[in-house]
Each structure stands twice: as structure tokens, then as C-alpha cells.
């Protein structure tokens, strides 16, 4: 069973502190970029639950990201609702229902067919938002910044997401909470079952588990969290468009998970950081930046089979004084081979 080594948690805590203090001295442009990364990281983590833990390679995960974003946009632009206490439940329910319906059909297939059917559903939703006049068409919609989600208690506004600093810290808090939530879920009896399903689905069924149900629930949890990330994205950019559900977006988030290291939760966070920062850096140097990015992805996949997380994990293990323990190294080797 995959375990996160203790030094990693220490590094992650340090990373969270660094993110918390960064806006105090960081360049405004990069503070905004980090906010973008954090939203993307939540999105990618939700996909990791499917790909890295349950073994369900979804190529349509952007569908739920988009549903979350469009639900947010509809409430703000059509109904003039900015109250987070209304928007958030609607977003979560919309994403969960979408995931339930798509998941119900998709989990009946596996392997390449699962990839294709999730992609097909995402494309259907893409055209649903793209073609229906109600949804503002191909260009999407700009949301009024004053109308962005806020949380108020009586007349006192507690959180106003149109304030970029507030948004930054909300996104950071959500990232930490999402990581904690998924970590807890993966340690639960449910988590054990879905990891078992990835390793040996047939045996899990023979042991008495209704594999379909567990897959479906995993799919709904992942889709709901992705919808939440879509809500954050709509609030961050005050802009929603069909591109949020495009297969490029599904592909991008899949690349982030693979690049970062699937089945680790923190891998996708690292993947999101590295990919966005690299994109920013390389696109400033050369107009062939997409080519360079592609090359980078190929190199990582070739030389770091466990992604960036695998590299970090190896380095973190070295930080620990070697223990006179015979059992452990074998275990690590096998784990690494399995991921």
C-alpha cells in the first residue's frame, strides 16, 4: 500500500508555510500565478484519486471542472447571486450529479474503453456549453468582479473572493484541506478497497466487495472535488468558457498527475507547480515553448518513472539517517516498482 514518508510531510508543511508568506514580499504577477497553480493542484489531486489510487484513467476529468465553473457563472451572471453559502452547495451538487451520471456508465468499462467513454462524455458536455445559446457560446462569459462569490455573516463580509489576496489565502486553505481530506479518505476502509481495486480488481471482488460501487463512489468524490476547483477557477479569473471542459484541459491535468507522480497526492501539487512555472519561464524565452514543454514531459516520463514525487521521495529518504533495518529496503523497492 502506498505510504507517504514522514520527511515528505515535513517538506509539505514547510512548502505550505512558504506559500503563506509569499504574498508578503512576492511579485504581484507571481502571486497571481501561484494562485492559479493552487487551483490547478486541487484539480489534479482530484484526478489522482482516480488515476493513481483507483486505477481509473479518466480522460474527461475537465467535465466536472467545467460544470463547477459554469454553475458558478450561472448563479452570478444569470441570477445575480454572490453568496457563497448558496453557490458552493449548488456547485458541489451539480458536479456530483454529473459525476454520478457519467461515472455510472463509465465504470462499466475498463482500460482503453474507460478512457474513451470519459472523453466522449466530456466532449458532449463541452458542446452542451459551447452550442446552447443559454451558456454564452464559444467565447464564454466575463463575470462582474463585484459579483464574485463572497461569504457574509449578516452584513459583515467575511470572505470576498474578488479581493485577490483573500482569494490567494482561500485557495491555499482549500489546497491544504483537500490534501488532508484525501489523505484521510485514503486511510479509511474505503481507501484500502480502492487501492486494492487498482492492484487486483478481480480478487477484491472475490473477497466480497461490490467493485462497481466503490469505483462509482471514488468517481463521484473525484468529480465533486474537480467541480470545486472549477468554482475556484471561475472566481479567480472572473471568466468562464467552454475551454474549461475541453479535452486539452483533461489532457493537461492528466499530464500534471503523471508528471508529478501519480498515487502520491503531493505529486500532482508538485506537477502543477513545475508545469505552470516552466511554461511561464520557457514561453518568455522562446516562441517554441510548447515544443520545449513536450520535450520536458518526455524526459520526465523516461527518466523519472515515478514522476517528480518519486525523485523528491528518494531525496527525502536520504535525509533520514540510515536505520539498521533489514525489512524496510525491500519494501521500498517493491513499492517503487509497483507505482
Amino acid at each position, binding site marked *: 500500500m502506498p505510504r507517504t514518508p514522514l520527511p515528505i510531510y515535513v517538506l509539505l508543511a514547510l512548502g505550505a508555510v512558504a506559500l503563506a508568506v509569499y504574498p508578503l514580499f512576492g511579485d504581484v504577477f507571481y502571486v497571481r500565478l501561484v494562485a492559479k497553480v493552487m487551483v490547478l493542484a486541487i484539480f489534479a489531486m482530484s484526478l489522482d484519486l482516480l488515476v493513481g489510487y483507483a486505477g481509473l484513467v479518466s480522460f474527461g476529468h475537465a467535465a466536472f471542472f467545467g460544470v463547477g465553473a459554469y454553475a458558478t457563472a450561472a448563479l452570478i451572471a444569470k441570477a445575480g447571486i454572490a453568496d457563497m453559502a448558496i453557490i458552493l452547495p449548488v456547485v458541489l451538487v451539480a458536479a456530483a450529479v454529473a459525476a454520478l451520471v457519467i461515472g455510472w456508465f463509465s465504470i462499466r468499462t475498463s482500460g482503453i474503453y474507460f478512457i474513451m467513454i470519459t472523453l466522449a462524455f466530456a466532449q458532449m458536455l463541452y458542446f452542451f456549453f459551447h452550442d446552447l445559446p443559454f451558456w454564452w457560446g464559444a467565447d464564454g462569459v466575463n463575470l462582474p468582479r463585484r459579483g464574485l462569490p463572497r461569504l457574509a455573516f449578516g452584513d459583515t463580509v467575511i470572505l470576498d473572493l474578488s479581493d485577490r489576496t483573500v482569494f490567494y489565502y482561500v485557495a491555499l486553505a482549500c489546497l491544504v484541506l483537500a490534501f488532508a481530506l484525501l489523505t484521510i*479518505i485514503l486511510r479509511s476502509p474505503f481507501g484500502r478497497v480502492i487501492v486494492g481495486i487498482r492492484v487486483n480488481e478481480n480478487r477484491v471482488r*472475490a473477497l466480497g466487495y461490490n467493485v462497481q460501487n466503490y469505483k462509482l463512489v471514488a468517481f463521484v468524490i473525484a468529480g465533486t472535488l474537480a467541480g470545486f476547483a472549477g468554482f475556484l477557477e471561475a472566481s479567480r479569473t472572473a471568466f468562464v468558457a467552454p475551454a474549461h471542459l475541453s479535452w486539452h484541459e483533461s489532457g493537461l491535468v492528466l499530464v500534471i498527475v503523471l508528471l508529478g507522480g501519480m498515487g502520491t497526492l503531493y505529486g500532482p501539487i508538485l506537477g502543477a507547480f513545475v508545469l505552470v512555472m516552466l511554461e511561464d519561464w520557457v514561453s518568455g524565452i522562446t516562441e517554441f515553448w510548447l515544443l520545449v514543454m513536450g520535450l520536458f514531459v518526455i524526459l520526465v516520463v523516461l527518466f523519472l518513472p515515478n514522476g517528480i514525487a518519486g525523485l523528491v521521495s528518494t531525496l527525502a529518504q536520504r535525509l533520514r539517517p540510515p536505520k539498521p533495518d533489514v525489512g524496510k529496503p525491500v519494501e521500498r523497492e517493491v513499492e517503487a516498482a509497483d507505482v
Partner: protein
Amino acid sequence: MSDVILETDGLSRTFGALVAVDGVTLSFRRGQVHAIIGPNGAGKTTLINLLSGELPPSAGTIKLRGRDITRAKADEVSLLGVGRSFQKTNIFQSFTCFENCWLGAQSRLPTSMRFFRPASVYREVEARARRAIELCGLTHRCDTPAGAMSYGEQRQLEIGMMLATEPELLLLDEPLAGMGSEEAVQVVELLKRLAADHTLILIEHDMDAVFAVADLLTVMVNGRVLETGTVEQIRASKAVREAYLGDEEGGGH
């Protein structure tokens, strides 16, 4: 016949033109060790796959404790107290021995749709898993990844995982296959012990082991039941000797 735990009626399974299991009508009595023997390709594993819900039958019915389970899926059959071990080792290679049995033990929680408390707080699951590991003789291997264990030990774990689900009826598909003689002796001892308070349906090529533990034998050839009887009856049967036991001797030359 109230002490019949499992019965099949005209059970068949085809793969295209091949009839792997052909009209098998058998009843298995509670508390007995019922061995099924037969040459390679006789359809023994396929029969187990039908009984355990792994495969749907092409025809016929299966009744467990008088209840029709012909269409039940593998997970449903398991929850009804039927455990199975696989001929081809089917374990979680990257999990430790303990984690393998844990997953078996956890399946007896009312539901594993529990999301917020760590699995490790479920003490009854841990106790069940430890009992199963002890029974199959792998206590010293508890924290070893299954993939790093010897082949024989993986075979033991195969049985341990099944025991962790605390089944009443055990479907054992060649539990001794590929084991060293030392381990085989251990497992035969285990089978004898299990026989005291379980019903066993045992497929095994090792005749010494079969004769040592079985109360009743069924001989299968080409998907059909050739004969069912006690060890003595089967040993004495001319038809069986011609079709199978003799065959085996012939194969030895």
C-alpha cells in the same frame, strides 16, 4: 437432506464450441471434505468459477443452503459465506502479507463505505486478519510484501486471504500446487484442522493429500461427473481407473 449446503443441477458452461462443464449435478454436505479430481482440462476450475460466481453458467442452477444463487456475482457469493482460493496465485503483490489479509478481513464489516476514520481503528478487522495469518502459518512474514515472499508462501497467503473472510464453505482450487513438500505437509495439516468446522470443496492433483483429507470424491472427465464415492469406492472403481488413475500412471512413462 437438510444437511446439504450446496447443490448444483445440470450445471453447464460453454466457451464457444467447447463444453468445459457439462451437466454437473452434485450435492455437497455440510461439514464434509468433498474432493474433485480429474485430469487437466476436466473443467474443475471452471466448476469452481461457476460455484463462486466468477463466471455465469450457460445452463443449470446452483443452490446454497436451499437458496438459488445461480445468477449471484462473486462478491455476493463471498458475502454468503463462501470463500475461494485460486489455482493461479491471485494476491496483492505490492501489499504486505498483513495488508492482504486485512483486505479479506475488512470485507466482513457491514460496509467498507466508511471514509473518515482510519482503517486501523477497526480492531475486529485486525484481529480477524491476524487469526487468518496465523492459521495459514505466515505470522513471521506479516510485514513482508507479498511479492517478495517465496512461491510456496504466496500459496499459503492465497489461503490466508480466503480464511480472513471467515467463510463457512471453502472452495479450494489446488491449494498444494507448486508447494515444497515441507509447506505441503503444513497445508494438509491446516486442511485437516479446517475440516473440523468448515465444509471444504477441494480440487487437488496430489492424491496422497486427497486421500488423507477427503470424505467424498468426485471424478470429473471432459466436463462431466464420472463418478462420486468414498475414497475406497473410487479407488476400487474400474471406470475411474481407466479414465483417470490409469491415465495418470500411463502419463508417468
